[in-house]
């Protein structure tokens, strides 16, 4: 019947059922045509603001305005490049459509056309990234809080592993990180010990650390056979990672900014001292010269929000108080920011679904059995768990992928906002 005695089924299927074309993608990811007019309008307005401001500062100098110019500059240059490319593309188009063009020129134009189109793509991508709004806390150092979630002792053990991972990551990237608070379940506080972690706060003391690590916030899930398991069953447990912007009370860099912000009641970092109750562990009985306690624990309670922070690591009450204030300020600033984001997120949510990142969402899975780490937001899987746990390059890869994903979400959100605003205007 056939010339060949036997043909494998897969081949026959491929040839006989041409309707099932797998592994082929027809939709291009992003084309210049998809660049939204709303986004473009936004870019234009920002660019015009940039031009206006830079004209203003040509004679006088103002630190605030020049800072703003610096922020807008990337948008302005990206827009200029994009417009130039767009113009040359349209010129090429008219050239092609013109029947009087001779064939040689036409060939050249066709060649150019392809190159320009691809260039336009990168240009528009640049423009979108430059339009992504900068997170207000991006430049701050951060506090990374790790707490075990469901899963009992195993969660505590994995929390310790995560802490080690982030410390390794920081040391590999030459970022100074210090333990602000470390508590294990049995009360010991030796980072090298094996007992399950109860709470750890890592202070990452480099400007921009919040921008770098804020994508790490969320629930990290682990699937493995725990050290405490004697029947070899795989357990799933969770660890919550919280990333807070750290507000230096008296930083060395940019001190004047923080000082001003701390005193300004409108800023996120402002905490009204009268709202905070300080509890110092006091000696029972007579006190004074009658006892010589070493209690140095300090507990701060922010009464309006009922946020409680306690510190007892240092022998110095003074130092404990300072650290507690720093932590409280960070927590409140984050809460204020989240409350504001909540409103914006309502607008966005219709478009993107659940995109707000909080502590409620599972963000990443570490599967020891398959040696796999999957980030659920960017969808990236890495099959090199050991390297990730050592804070290696693969962790960088994951973090970068999440950051790109976050950027895209931001843009979608922006578009949604603009469209909603446009819709309101029409009404």
């Amino acid at each position, binding site marked *: 019947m056939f010339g060949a005695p036997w043909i494998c089924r897969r081949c026959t299927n491929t040839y006989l059922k041409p309707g099932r074309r797998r592994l082929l993608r027809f939709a291009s990811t992003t084309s210049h045509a998809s660049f939204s007019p709303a986004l473009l309008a936004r870019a234009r307005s920002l660019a015009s603001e940039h031009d206006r401001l830079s004209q203003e500062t040509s004679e006088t100098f103002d630190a605030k305005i020049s800072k703003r110019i610096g922020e807008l500059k990337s948008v302005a240059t990206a827009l200029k490049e994009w417009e130039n490319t767009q113009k040359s593309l349209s010129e090429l188009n008219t050239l092609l459509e013109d029947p009087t063009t001779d064939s040689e020129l036409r060939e050249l134009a066709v060649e150019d056309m392809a190159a320009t189109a691809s260039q336009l793509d990168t240009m528009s991508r640049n423009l979108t990234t430059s339009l992504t709004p900068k997170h207000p806390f991006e430049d701050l150092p951060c506090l990374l809080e790790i707490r075990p979630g469901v899963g009992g002792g195993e969660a505590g053990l994995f929390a310790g592993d995560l802490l080690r991972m982030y410390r390794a990551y920081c040391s590999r990237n030459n970022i100074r990180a210090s333990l602000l608070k470390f508590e294990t379940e*049995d*009360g*010991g*506080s*030796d980072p090298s010990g094996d007992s399950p972690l109860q709470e750890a706060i890592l202070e990452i003391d480099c400007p921009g650390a919040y921008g770098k690590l804020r994508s790490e916030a969320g629930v990290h899930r682990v699937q493995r056979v725990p050290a405490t398991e004697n029947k070899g069953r795989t357990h799933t447990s969770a660890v919550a990672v919280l990333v807070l912007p750290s507000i230096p009370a008296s930083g060395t860099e940019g001190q004047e900014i923080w000082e001003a912000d701390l005193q300004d009641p409108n800023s996120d970092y402002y905490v009204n001292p009268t709202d905070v*109750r*300080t509890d*110092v562990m*006091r000696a029972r*009985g*007579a*006190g*004074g*010269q*009658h*006892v*010589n*306690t*070493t*209690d*140095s*624990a300090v507990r701060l309670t922010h009464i309006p929000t009922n946020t409680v922070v306690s510190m*007892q690591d*240092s*022998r*110095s*009450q*003074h*130092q404990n108080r300072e650290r507690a204030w720093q932590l409280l300020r960070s927590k409140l600033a984050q809460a204020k920011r989240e409350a504001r984001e909540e409103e914006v997120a309502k607008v966005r949510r219709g478009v993107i679904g659940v995109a707000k990142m909080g502590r409620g969402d599972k963000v990443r899975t570490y599967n020891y059995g398959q040696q796999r780490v999957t980030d659920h937001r960017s969808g990236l899987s890495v099959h090199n768990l050991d390297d990730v746990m050592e804070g290696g390059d693969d962790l960088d890869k994951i973090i970068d992928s999440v950051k790109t994903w976050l950027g895209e979400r931001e843009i979608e959100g922006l578009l949604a906002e603009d469209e909603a605003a446009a819709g309101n205007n029409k009404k």
Partner: protein
Amino acid sequence: MPRLPHSLLLRAYKISPFLPLVLRGARTLDSAINEFRWLREHVEACKLPSDQASRKRLLYLCKRRSRAEPLQYILGSQPFGPLDIKCRPGVLIPRPETEAYTSHLAELLISGKLDEYLSIPAPETKQGNFVTPSNQLSILDVCSGSGCISLLLHSLLSNSGKFPNLRTLGLDISPHAVGLANENLALNIQQGHFPISAIRNDDDTRPQDKGLSNARLKRKKAREAKFSLFPRDKAIHFAPHDIFTSLPRSLGNFSIIISNPPYISSSSFARETTRSVRLYEPKLALVPDPESYSSSKKNNTESTASKSANNISIQSSTPDTSSPKTQNPPLQIDPADIFYNRLLSLSASRSAKILLMEVGDSSQAIRVLKLALSKPYIAKTSKFELWRDFPGQAPQPGEDTVVDVNGQMIPVKGAGNIRSVVLFRTPSALKEEQDEERKEEKSRKKK
């Protein structure tokens, strides 16, 4: 002392085999865990050659703690505000309450809330041809011990930059304590808690020295530095001195007198102090013993307090004819309060604008207030306040904000136990007091 339950010791043992030892000293598991961590960090910081050596060292330290030796003596230091204060047996360990009121006083001074008292011009004193510069803030710390109060006040005030001409003198009867205070000064200078301008006093030429030649001036200064209680080229200094003997007139006036004197009576020393205080801290710094201050028996012009063993009666120090208060029966002074009597008269003779004294409890505070009110020219010229353990905080529910002493309402600030008595000299009263002093002098001359 209640026995530690076995279950608690067992729980501690499960965490670390060393912990039951520390628990015996610290008495509660939470503080034992913290103390054990600090001990371990201390041993780690020592960088001993081998693991075994550091384990041995840790065991040794834990054993010392189990015998109730204060952790501060074992580690050799105690944080006090932003400073680090060295501690050594024989000198009282700085207490957190002391830290609280000292920093509160510094805060008040820096924020300018006490300017109304400080801005009073000092009475013109020509004692010993000495004139106190008007813009100078001088602090006298009586019973300075480890020097913690002087050092913290001096550091906070000089770092604020508000008091360019600041001088602090710490006096203590124990030469051992003075030695430690000087070590603490050197340590904290090294750690950068003092600006250089706050250690030296550049303005050290006296008006009467102006005519002298340079060489003579130098010799004079060298002689003074050797014998003076407060060398003129120093802005902060500690010196051994028994405060019941007279202070040299040349020291001039002090704007602020602050003191944490011994205030525990011998009966409450036996019953109320904790074991580690009783066994390891110097009794000299805790219990005032009239017998031990032999020099106080000398009849000095400045020392109005005469110390017979138990009940001391003093007449009010104003002339008998001019004061209506002389009808009051002579006040009985509790032996635990003898320092307060001396401090009150010291602050009057040195025209101190602020006098802060630590006290043991509310009953002692009220005794001190009554003592102060019994001295008419202190009662008339001063505003009184009581501060609790944490004077900067809002009072807890159930804590009074006012105390009635002899019909006078005394405000109480802060939260916790009543910890200190504060006297502010009111501006209006100053002139009267000068008159009183003059009268006193005259009457003395007549005699």
